[in-house]
């Protein structure tokens, strides 16, 4: 069970969207939580934004980088935004 790959929907926001070159993607992954997922995405999309300054939302609710993910989850990575 723990080894079953998860199918996830990912959304990037702001500077992450620009670095990734897309706002949304679907992914099958061995990652079990947002921290592992982001580490994997950093490699495949050359994301330079540090993980410790990110907020993550899972299924339209803020979570943290250690929250366990399940297949079908919608994961949004949100970097700090300040312009006005």
């Amino acid at each position: 069970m723990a080894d079953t790959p998860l199918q996830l929907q990912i959304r990037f926001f702001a500077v992450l969207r620009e670095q990734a070159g897309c706002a949304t993607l679907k992914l099958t992954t061995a990652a079990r939580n947002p921290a592992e997922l982001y580490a994997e995405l950093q490699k495949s999309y050359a994301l330079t934004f540090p993980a410790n300054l990110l907020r993550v939302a899972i299924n339209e609710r803020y979570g943290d980088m250690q929250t366990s993910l399940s297949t079908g989850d919608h994961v949004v990575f949100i970097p700090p935004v300040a312009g006005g």
Partner: protein
Amino acid sequence: MFELTATPIDPADRARRLASPEAGAAVIFEGRVRNHHLGQPVTHLEYEAFDALAQAEGEAIITETEQLYTGTQVHCVHRTGTLRIGEVAIWIGVASAHRAAGFAACRHVIEEIKRRLPVWKKEHHPDGAAEWVNCTTETATNPTLTAYHTRQASLPEVGAAGQAKLAAARVLVVGVGGLGCPAALYLTGAGIGHLTLVDGGHVELSNLHRQLLFTLAEVGAPKVLAAAARLRLQHPAIEIKMHQGDLTATNARALVAGHDVVLDCTDNFTSRFILHDACQALGLPLISAAVHRFEGTLDVFQHGTGGCLHCLWAGRTATELEPQENCAGGPVFGPAVGVLGVMQAAETLKILLGLAGTAAQQTRLVNLLDGSTLTIERLARPDCPICRRLDQLPAPATAQNSELKNLWITAAQLTALGPTTKIVFLLEPGEMAPSGGRNNFQAIPAHDLAALREFVVTGPVALTCRHGLRSAALARLLRAEGLSDIYALKSL
């Protein structure tokens, strides 16, 4: 140059004196006596000025106008005494390098004169009757404004009662940039009665594509001054206060106090945290927005509902979070700040009208490139040290130091202080006054600091409110201002 004169104004002579070799434009306005007012025929006028005060206020208006419209030279002459129909009552001439600043400055002077100059006119009617009209109240009570809000007040969710709430509301906008401009403009249009603008910056040419309160004529002007002038044209009855300076940890609570809703239109995390903490401490709703290029975020923070800014960022400091590119130099898609600023205005109006729903537990993400919006639930973190600390503030039992012990008082202890004590209940927007059951009980809007200060003059005052948080924070703030006779009421 400002002058009051009892002798007739000679426009040709005044125009000659305005000439200057640097000036490529001369814009002249003449205010003349007309033969009717509000449908009544008028035969002649008498102008009376409070001389010393009118002279000082006139000079202040000229100085402010020349500061607002860089490179203008303003001359203004106002008549006193008896004037016939067609005679020049006020003459304004502006010499400037270019026409834009000249026209804008000339308009600004006459609007401010009408609004501020202590001058009264006595209108004489053909039947011999006459009445005094205070020129400064004439604009705000203009009967042609009655239809202004018809289309908004006819919304069942607004109505005449809602419109009255908006007119009584006090809203603070911190940052008059890409977010603050559209937010303030829509709040003004909606009929918010009292608006405070905070910004220490000046209008730059690179602001104009998104900060649409400003035009080429205002480049170089202090933003709060330029914005206030533009907003008053939108709604002459609005009362605007300005703070030309930055929000700091030292002035934040004093700036925030006395308002019903606060808008965070700043462009950096340092200001955002300072403003957020001041609003949380005083129990005021904060509507915070931020933009990165084509995308933006909107958060409504309300103490005790949903997560706070510290819950959101879980211990990260402003310095850590400050993005590499910010509003001062980074690329910005104009409509992105426009949309987010207008959303801030919408959330403000909804709070004041009691339509806010669950907005205070949510972050909204907006992406104008793919048109998507996403609402994320923002719950309080059980381990958030800031939320917990603020929750403990109003509890008298936890008061450790003498300042706090001294702050809390029971109704019985208050009565023992003297014959003229008062218990003042602070009302939030839309809240009904509770029945006090005591003859020294009074309920006032929480923003009415002027009334509070007057109460304190007559004797000791204990503040209370629905949760006890806002009243305790305000009592603490007024103590810091040096009012020692103010207390927070300890419920029995």
